[in-house]
Structures are given as C-alpha cells and as structure tokens.
C-alpha cells in the first residue's frame, strides 16, 4: 500500500470496528481530493461518510459535538494550510473540553486529519507545516507519520486515543513509497519516537518527510565524512518522547533537528532547549 491507501485502510478499519465512527469533511463523500476516503461512502453509507459544507470552523465544531455526544468523529481538513479557521475550535474548545469541565465532558474521541507539507508546486498556501502552533496547546496530541505502515498504525492509535488528536499527513508521501501494510487492524504507540538508524557521532531528529531527507544524510555522512549518525523519527510531536532523544544525545553528544516548518519558533527549538536542560539535569540517565 502507499500512504493514502494505508490511510483509507485505517479509516475502513475504524468504521468497521466502531459503528458510531463517522468520516467527513470537504469533498470526502466522493473519495477526497487526495483519494483518502475512496470507496468508504459506498461501503458504510452516506450517513457515516459524508461531505460537509465548506467551513473548517464548522467541521471542527461539528466534530467536537459528535465526540461530546459519544460518537467517534474523524474529520478531514482538506489542507493543513486551511486549518486556521478551525484554530479556535481546536485550541480553545477541543483541547480544553475535558479540563474546563473537570472531566465531566470530553471530546477525546475526536481525530482531525490534514494533509501538510510541501510537494514542490503548492506554493505559499498548499505547503505549510503548522504543527508548532498546535504543539503549544496542552490537551492536544499531534502526530505526523513518515510512511504507509506508520500512517495506518498511528492514525488508528489517534482514533482510539481518549484525547483529541491532530494527524498531519505529509502529502508528498501519499504516492511516493509503497510498504507492506497489514490489511487488518493494528495500532502503533503514540508519544514514542523510533530509532531508525543507530549511530555514535550525532543524533538526527526529524518527522514526516524530513525523515527521508535525513536518511539520505545518514548515508552521505557515512560515505563522504565517515560520520556515524543516529536517526530518530519523532512521530508524535505532542506529547513528544523526550526520553528517547535525550538518551540518544547522551550517547552521541550532538543533536541536529530538521523540520520543514519555519525555523523561528519551530518545534525544533522546543526539542533543542528541552534536551539541553535534560542533559544538564541528567533527567534520563
């Protein structure tokens, strides 16, 4: 399966598993502009897989309401660049629903999916990676997969997680690579980074598309510079796996973080700062 097919497969499993699950968003009914929901409406009916009017704030608010009433909403934002009309609903509502009600109400069953990142021709408004905005919001989980196998497992984890999750799908990866992906249900743990290449000289951390860039860097560095890199896919941006990275950096003594989003105030800064503190305080070793 490629990545968009693995997303479809995860949604398929969720719809099968949970009769209260609904998949919706702009143009979702006919299969979605990135083909992630192809065939689901035919299979599960138009009351479970459906188009909404064109309003991201409406989609997010509607989805929260479904979750509050006990259903499992899986909402699609057509592009991460257009998630901002829903920012208030996500940041002020979804993230704080449980907290502000003292756990009387929550919308933990909510999952929001959004294609993100650059593909090369998307220019200003079809290329953004807005994960850092959401990483600043307690109460949310933010996840970005690097490939089809991870995508299905992590999306399934988001859907099952009792907290509202935002799942960013690097859209350049939708059709780029094919991996073995189980057809059946499975999930991968959230908030766990994955060490992809072990090394001793420097730790490289990335997520989504950058993992593939860094893989090439690992090879180049080995071949040209004889530098032995350790490569880590962060996978979950919030709450992120500080321990795995701190342990790695404790070993290699060096850290390089690569992300696609703007540098200033990016999530890389959070990682760099936290890892320095945790090394000084020897929090993890």
């Amino acid at each position: 399966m490629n990545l968009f097919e693995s997303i479809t497969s995860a949604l398929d499993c969720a719809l099968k598993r949970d009769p209260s699950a609904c998949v919706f968003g702009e143009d979702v009914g006919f299969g979605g502009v990135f083909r992630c929901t192809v065939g689901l409406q035919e299979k599960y009916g138009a009351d479970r897989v459906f188009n909404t009017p064109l309003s991201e704030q409406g989609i997010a608010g509607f989805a929260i309401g479904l979750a509050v009433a006990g259903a499992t909403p899986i909402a699609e934002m057509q592009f991460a660049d257009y998630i901002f009309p829903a920012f208030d609903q996500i940041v002020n509502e979804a993230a704080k629903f449980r907290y502000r009600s003292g756990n009387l109400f929550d919308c933990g069953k909510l999952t929001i999916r959004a294609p993100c990142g650059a593909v090369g021709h998307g220019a200003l408004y079809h290329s953004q990676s807005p994960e850092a905005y959401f990483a600043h919001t307690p109460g949310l989980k933010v996840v970005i997969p690097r490939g089809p196998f991870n995508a299905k497992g992590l999306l399934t984890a988001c859907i099952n997680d009792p907290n509202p999750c935002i799942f960013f799908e690097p859209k350049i990866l939708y059709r780029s690579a094919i991996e073995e992906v189980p057809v059946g249900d499975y999930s991968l743990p959230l908030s766990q980074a994955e060490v992809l290449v072990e090394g001793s000289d420097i730790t490289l951390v990335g997520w989504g598309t950058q993992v593939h860039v860094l893989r090439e860097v690992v090879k180049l560095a080995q071949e040209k510079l004889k530098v032995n890199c350790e490569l880590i896919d962060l996978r979950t941006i919030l709450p992120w796996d500080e321990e795995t990275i701190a342990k790695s950096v404790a070993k290699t003594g060096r850290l390089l973080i690569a992300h696609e989003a703007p540098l200033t105030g990016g999530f890389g800064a959070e990682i760099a700062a936290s890892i320095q503190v945790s090394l000084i305080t020897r929090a993890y070793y």
Partner: protein
Amino acid sequence: MNRRALFYSFLVISVSVFAYFAFSKVSDTIVTEILINSSKENVYAFLSNLENIPKISLPAKSVFITKDVVDDENVRHVNVIIVENLKFVGNLNLTSYFIFDEENYTIRSYSHILNGFLEITNLWKITNEGNKVKFKEIYQVASPKILISFVKREAKELHQHMVRYSSSLGDEKPQFPGSRSEYTYKLQFLMPDQYEGIPVYRVMTRKGEVLDSADDPNLDKETTQKMYKDMTLLNTMDRILYESQRQGRISFYMTNYGEEGTHIGSAAALDPKDLVFGQYREAGVLMHRGYTLDEFMNQCLGNVDDANKARQMPVHYGSDKLRFVTISSPLATQIPQAAGAAYAFKRAQNNLVVMCYFGEGAASEGDAHSAFNFAATLNCPVIFFCRNNGYAISTPTSDQYRGDGIAARGPGYGIPTLRVDGNDVWAVYNAVREARNLAISQNRPCLIEAMTYRIGHHSTSDDSQAYRSVDEVHFWHSEDHPIQRLRWYMERKNWWNDETEKEWMQSSRKQVLEALSRAEKKKKPSPSQMFTDVYAEVPPHLKKQFEEVKKHIGNYSKEYPLDKFEKF
C-alpha cells in the same frame, strides 16, 4: 389542455381581472374579500365559480401572485394573477404569494423575507357567495396594518411582465445547480426593507391574559408553581450573588434579570434527557433541571466541590447528570458543537434533541453561521435558541446587525424559524415544544429567536448606564417582566397570592444565603488539580512540570495562601 396552454389561459384570465380587496376587522381576525366584477369578462365567472371548478382547472400548485404597488398617497395596491406553477417565486418584486390547497380549498399566503420565503400564518378560506368569491382569512394576520387594495392598475405592465416570464416558464428555466427559481427579465434588487418583519408569537398580553385559550398550554398548578418558583429563585440567587461580588466574596457574576421567561419556558418544554449547550446567561435552565443552590455556589466560589475544579470563572456551570454541557467563555463555539451532537443523536435514534442557547451578539460569529448551515444540510435535530436581549455588553442590536434580527436568517439556511415573545413564558414553552416535535419528526434544525431584554448589567464588570438610559431599563422592569406576567396568570387562577409570595420570597432568600455560606466555608481545590484532566492521563512532561511547581511552592510556601487550599 397541455400545461402550457393551461398556463396561457390563466394568464389571459389573470391580467384582465378587475377586483379589489376590502378589509374589515372582526374581533382578532381580518376578513378579506375579493370582490369580482362578474359582468366584465368570463374570467370573473371563472373566479366566482371557484368552488365548482373541477380540480384540473385549478391544480394544486396554482399560485396567486400578488404584485405590490404603493401609490403616491401611500396606499398599497396588489394585483393578483394566477399562474400554474408554484415554482415561480423569483425576483418579480413580490411580497406575497398564495398557494391553493385543493383538498381543503384554502389558500395559504407566504411572505418574502430577504432571499428566502417565510410562511406567515395567514390561511385563507375560499367561499363563494353569489358571484363573489370571498377569501376569508382564518388565521390572525401577521401585520394587520397593511390594507391591500386590489385594482386593475398596472395590469398592462404586469401583462408584459408575464409574457416575458411565460417564455421562460415554458422551455427556459434556470438549470444552474442549486437554483430553484425562475428567470426574470426585470432588473430588480431584493430590498430588505420592502418586507414586513417576522411577527413575534405570544400567548399572553403584558398583563398575563391569555388571548386565545387554545394557546394556553394549560399546565397544572404544581408545574406552573414550580416554574414560577424557579424564575423567582433564580432572581433571588442573582441578587445575592451580584451583591456578594460587590462585597468581594466572589470574583465575578452575571445576572439573568428579565430573561427568566426564556430560561424556564424553554427548559420546561424539553425532555430532561435532551442535551443542552448554553452560552452563560441560562442559569434558569439548569435550575429548572434540578441543579442545586449548593452546586451553583460551589462553582461561583471555585471551592473544592466545584465540578470544574475551580478552573473557570463564576457562572461557567455544567452537569453531566443534568445533561448540560459545561459553559465555555469563547462565544458561539457551542453552536456548531450542538449541531454535531444532534447528528450523533439522530444516528443513535434516541428521540432526543440538542438544545443550543446563544445571544444575538454571539450570532454574529462565524461559528453561528457554520452551525446553521451544517445543521440544515446534515439534517440535525437541534433547536437553535437565540436570546435576543437587545445588547451584547454595550453593543445595541442596531450595531450588531442590519437585517430583521436573527430569525430572518433562518429561511436563508432552510431552517424552520419562529420569533417568540421571550417574556411570555407560555409562548416560549409552546415554541420549544413545537420545535422539539418538528426537529425529531423531521430530523431537522429549528431556529427560535426569543425577544427579551437584559435588565441587569452585562456582568459585574459592566455599568450599563454608560450606554443606555435608566428609563429604558425601567420600562422593561415595570411594564413587561416575565415573572410578573406569569404571576398575574397564576393569580387569575387563584394559584398564587401576596401571602404565598411573601412566604416564598423569605424562604428562598434564606435557602440561597445558607447555600452561599456553606460554600464559602469550603477550601479551594488542591493545586495539583492544575495538571489533571489536561489529558485523560497525566503525561510525563506534565508530571515533570507539576513536580517543578510543587518544589517551587515548597520553597516559597510563605508567598502563597496555602491554608485556603486543599493539600497538594
């Protein structure tokens, strides 16, 4: 006769009609006659024989279209023509159109509101007396002031218009996806002021008299007394908590003065299991559902028994038990959420609705628009209940919107809509009960705009004298108060008197004061609660942050009033 030929025959008939409406007011209904001069053309024979005409001649979808003209003396004239196809409701500068119901032999009239049509409850019965056709209006007319005179005037222009129109009716209809109207060849903007405002439904006069006993929901004495007690208890609680804020005992408060009728009337019409999403000025709804004075006080004090664990400002109540979703400060966010919850209800087939309250100010937010549109397109059984109390903090409605209030938006979204007198508890009750039936039986949203007045300041942070006159407030307080109106109603039935009032006022005041002092004695929740419920489980990074806070407070314990809080 094929459709087209039939149409033309109607057309010919219609443009030569010469008749007039005459109005007379008989009790509370308006009787309208269309007098037809039968000697002039055979059309009059046709019309005067209306009841005897076989159904095929006046098919169910026949429409009487009126064309309004206001002459120099400001008299309104209306030409009536009959066309075959109901679909013609486009930009013909129509203010009303009439649909003939062949089964009941009645004509229902519709009025043009903004870019949609809204039914005003005018139902006309056609009778035949001699060679006159009488159109008797059965329902109370929406706006009795309008005198319609029915003259030949402008028949020629109308004729030309219809000829143009007829060519479009035949073979050229707009084929645009999403269009349901006809072509027009007249460049004519739809002018919002041309249409009458949506009427305000009420049952009682300002003096608590029921106008038509058929509209009295006739709730029993006990139920009515409970409603009255809820309204007055809310009022008493408001007074005491408002004062307690002035005295620095709580940090903030918002009163509900003047809006008690909207709260209790609506809450009483709901099923207790219907899920409520509120804004913040709906404490009466919770009170009616059984939220205790202790629960109100605990929340406002933010003490250890506050369900929200002191995380929100006062008046942000919530109760899962009473199916009232915890209030959130950002305005209007609850409205699309209510639509989503209603969608889940529909799928669960639980025969419940979602009730969503919001102010006329909040209705300006994008969330409100999205919510109406989502609920309509996705067929959600939700009641959108707008409390139009005239103000959003200091902003009067004249700065908030330019149209005919919030109700006028309903038809634009395809939502059944009603405007109601919010100070008339029975009108609110009937409105919500009917909306509930409609929402459940048809799986669609309803919009209710309850007209009321915010008698109190916006909140304890506001002094409304800066933007409105004391006289204005006084008018509503003394002339149109929902509590007083219900009291008059009850007194008429001998269900309440000065004696019972005095007793109740004393005992309710005592209850509130006691609850307040109980709540004040309790400690604030443990600071450790700051880190729970952010996620379902406290994640490692928040545990770490909590440990840091704990250490910090340990080091500087003298700087913090720890004795007022539960232990870490």
